[in-house]
């Protein structure tokens, strides 16, 4: 092999290695930000099962559905979640926590504004949940034809892309 051919081949291999390396180094932060901007990786749990997530033990106590009075095509779903913190500082990681209903295609509905006396997921940073369990209540209004096939999703910005998902089997 002539020296020139050898030098050309070496340059080509160096280029093939360096190009993806440079792209990765310059864009990895953007990739990470894009990945953490959405909750896509579900940690699946069954309703009766307690699941560990973000320093809390989560248990889905109830997910009740009833058609709304005014519009039968809409159904109100009420979810009750019992949670207990495993560490005092865990509550701080719950900032901007949100609860959704999710169907099999990943389509999500957010909870209605909470009623007086109810504790919502977003209030957790201000509540001490280490002493005794806290009951979270979330109410949703979703299309009636979707009510049979929804799961409950708990999304915490600090944990993304991971999120907790309770599969619910209607009895």
């Amino acid at each position, binding site marked *: 092999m002539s020296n020139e051919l050898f030098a050309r081949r070496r340059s080509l291999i160096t280029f093939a290695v360096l190009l993806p390396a440079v792209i990765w180094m310059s864009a990895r932060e953007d990739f990470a930000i894009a990945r953490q901007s959405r909750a896509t990786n579900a940690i699946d749990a069954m309703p009766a099962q307690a699941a560990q997530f973000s320093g809390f033990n989560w248990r889905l106590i109830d997910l009740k559905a009833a058609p709304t009075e005014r519009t039968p095509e809409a159904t109100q779903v009420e979810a009750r979640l019992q949670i207990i913190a495993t560490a005092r500082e865990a509550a701080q990681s719950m900032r901007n926590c949100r609860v959704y209903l999710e169907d099999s295609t990943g389509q999500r509905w957010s909870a209605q504004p909470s009623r007086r006396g109810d504790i919502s997921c977003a209030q957790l940073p201000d509540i001490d949940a280490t002493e005794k369990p806290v009951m979270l209540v979330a109410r949703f209004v*979703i299309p009636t034809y979707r009510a049979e096939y929804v799961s409950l999703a708990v999304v915490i910005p600090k944990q993304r892309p991971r999120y907790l998902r309770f599969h619910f089997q209607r009895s």
Partner: protein
Amino acid sequence: MSGGAHLAAKVAGMLLSIGAILFMWHTMPGYVEITAPFVTRGDAGEWVHTRTFGVRVDKSYLSRTLRQTSFGRSEERTTSGVWVIVKVDALAVHEPSMIGAFALQTEDGRRYQHTERVRLSRKVGLLGRELQPEMPVAALLVFEVPEDVVANLMLIAGEREIPHLTSEAHISLRWQSSNPLTSIRDTLDLGS
């Protein structure tokens, strides 16, 4: 290769490179174009779905005065132009979302933002209201525009006021008569 041919090839290569640079210089999109919103166009009466929300223009009205009841008191708002009231339905696509900006665009590109002179209740307003998938909500949008531009107006609904790489719906408004100025009402009650 002879010396002359070698030189000619070098000059041709250089000219080709300069030509390519000039071509790219003139055809490369600018920052504003690269970060422009993703626009979905449609007509009044049909659903226009963007990546994050869907919107449908139901009816549009023109009025010189708006009447509104606030804390039990009837208030009237006049304008030096004309009030445009657009009745819309809106929903989220795939996950909860908001429509953060509404404007009317004239034929020559001027944009008039949703008015801040009229406070709409959460029940009829759409700004700051969270939309849900497959759950359309009806709402009113209110704009104040000069009278001479009402014939050709386009509703622009966007995710945010600064529309960099966001979704926008552009919907042409339709009037019942060919001359919309004839359908301007004296007073329109926002409560009715």
